[in-house]
């Protein structure tokens, strides 16, 4: 190889080395830049979160510094000063007193466990003008916080109802035996709507015993209020004639891949009663004929008629092995099962009857508006 060729080869090798070095160095540098940027972004995120938290804390402190505290009946409500707050705070305190004393009047100091004594809040909307209209009263307990809109000027009766309603959300904590039967929210304030819904559910139920209960049959009410377990529960809650209706009503829950149930459904639709029964029984949580709402009204109806001793007895009832809530409530309140059930059924029935608006005001209103509009239409005479 000549000297010239050797030099040329060396230069080529050098060039290749430089080019290779440059080619590798670029991605390596970019990678390290990316890592650095990522780290900076993470740091910025952490700082931003810390700054936001600090701002929130400072803002809450500033609000607290401006806020008042209303204390009544062992309860504490943090309120933001607003126009007319002195009078309204007195009404708020009055409502709290009334609600708490009603609870104590019913069940004595045993009911204290139902009331959350951490700080409650009375806050307005973020829109100042909207706060002129209504405020929100919220209990402070995390997890089971309840709130209600309170129209201004504050009505103590509304606050009183809220205290009862709030206590109702803690009832299954106080009386574990009721858990699973009446849900978590018990309408201790007994609003008529809940009884109306209960009556509607009874009247429209797939279960014939429930419908007979609505019509006045106490033994049938007893059947549908029984919290039974196992396969026999369906025989208690439903008549054989109801099986088809229950099965077809819940047929929408069958997943497309469930060929067994689809076959049962087809046979049921073709008129085979045994297939309907099998399909109904195949639903795992089939099917308490009433939702928790009517059951909760039954419990709140019984509790409203109980004394403080009854409440203590209920609190002491074991959570396990007490499927018969009717017997439990009857035993605790000292009211016979039939009277308890009849009172609940009659109340639901009467509430529903009263909820139907009478036709006369509607007729009178239409007549008055018709006359007003007729009067307006004669005002302009064509020329």
């Amino acid at each position, binding site marked *: 190889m000549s000297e010239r060729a050797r030099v040329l080869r060396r230069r080529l090798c050098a060039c290749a080395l430089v080019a290779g070095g440059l080619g590798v160095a670029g991605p390596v540098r970019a990678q390290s830049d990316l890592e650095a940027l990522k780290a900076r972004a993470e740091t910025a995120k952490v700082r931003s979160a810390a700054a936001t938290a600090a701002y929130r804390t400072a803002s809450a402190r500033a609000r607290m510094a401006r806020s008042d505290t209303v204390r009544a009946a062992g309860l504490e409500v943090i309120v933001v000063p607003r126009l007319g707050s002195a009078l309204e705070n007195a009404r708020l305190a009055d409502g709290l007193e009334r609600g708490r004393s009603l609870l104590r009047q019913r069940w004595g100091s045993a009911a204290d466990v139902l009331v959350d004594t951490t700080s409650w809040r009375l806050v307005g909307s973020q829109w*100042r003008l909207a706060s002129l209209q209504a405020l929100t009263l919220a209990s402070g307990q995390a997890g089971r916080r309840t709130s209600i809109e309170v129209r201004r000027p504050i009505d103590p009766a509304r606050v009183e109802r809220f205290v009862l309603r709030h206590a109702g959300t803690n009832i299954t904590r106080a009386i574990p035996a009721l858990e699973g039967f009446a849900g978590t929210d018990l309408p201790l304030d007994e609003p008529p709507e809940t009884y109306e819904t209960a009556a509607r559910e009874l009247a429209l139920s797939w279960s014939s015993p429930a*419908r007979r209960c609505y019509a006045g049959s106490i033994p049938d009410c007893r059947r549908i209020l029984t919290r039974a377990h196992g396969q026999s529960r369906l025989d208690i809650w439903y008549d054989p004639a109801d099986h088809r209706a229950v099965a077809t009503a819940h047929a929408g829950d069958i997943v497309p891949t469930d060929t067994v149930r689809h076959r049962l459904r087809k046979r049921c639709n073709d008129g085979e009663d045994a297939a309907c029964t099998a399909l109904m029984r195949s639903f795992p949580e089939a099917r308490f004929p009433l939702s928790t709402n009517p059951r909760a009204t039954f419990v709140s109806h019984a509790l409203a008629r109980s004394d403080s001793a009854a409440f203590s007895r209920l609190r002491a009832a074991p959570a396990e092995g007490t499927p018969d809530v009717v017997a439990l409530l009857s035993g605790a309140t000292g009211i016979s099962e039939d009277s308890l059930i009849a009172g609940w059924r009659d109340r639901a029935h009467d509430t529903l009857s009263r909820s139907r608006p009478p036709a006369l005001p509607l007729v009178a209103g239409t007549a008055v508006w018709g006359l007003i509009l007729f009067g307006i239409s004669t005002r302009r005479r064509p020329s």
Partner: protein
Amino acid sequence: MFRQILFTQLRWTRTMIAAMAVLTFLTPAMAWWLGATRVLNPLSPRAIMAGFQSVSMILIITSLLGAFLVAAYPWTQDAAAKHVLPLSLPVTWRHYVAMRFGAGALTLVLPALTLWLGSVATLALIEIPSTLRAYPGTLALRFLLATLMAYSGTFALQYIAGRRSAIVMLVVLLGGLVLGLVLQFAGLNFIVERFFEFLTTSPGPLAVFAADWKLVDV
């Protein structure tokens, strides 16, 4: 004279009234056919309630549309002749408008009657469970009141705004919508809520439309 005005009113609006009457007669049966025949247990209380669910919507639309036409059409006929006849009659304008209003209102009783008949006929073919009750009379009364309310509103608008009634109605509707949106954005939606509450609860003018329109209920 009222008889003559009633006669002309009937002549002008007979097609509309007949169409309304036929529609209201058939509405319960149609609603049942559309709703309940798709349910596997058509005789259970829930299925019966579901079966008649569409009755309210059909009847509200019928009452609004029918009343609008029955109020507006005679006015357009009068306006086409530049109101020469009413102005040449030996009665005051107020008296004439009262007779025209009364004649129109009277014709609207017919669709309410056919609704009652249609409801009774349909219910006679269905076995109603003991926990449910049928309300054919109440439904027909609600329909009559709603029709009369819509008729009075349209009549007033037509006789006040004349040929510009469509524009006035559009302006009122758009103005209300814009005002509602402005109040919403200003955080004053409670004013809008209160206003709607006033309109739709008794004795508000639209209370009859917001009332329960169920043919069968518990």
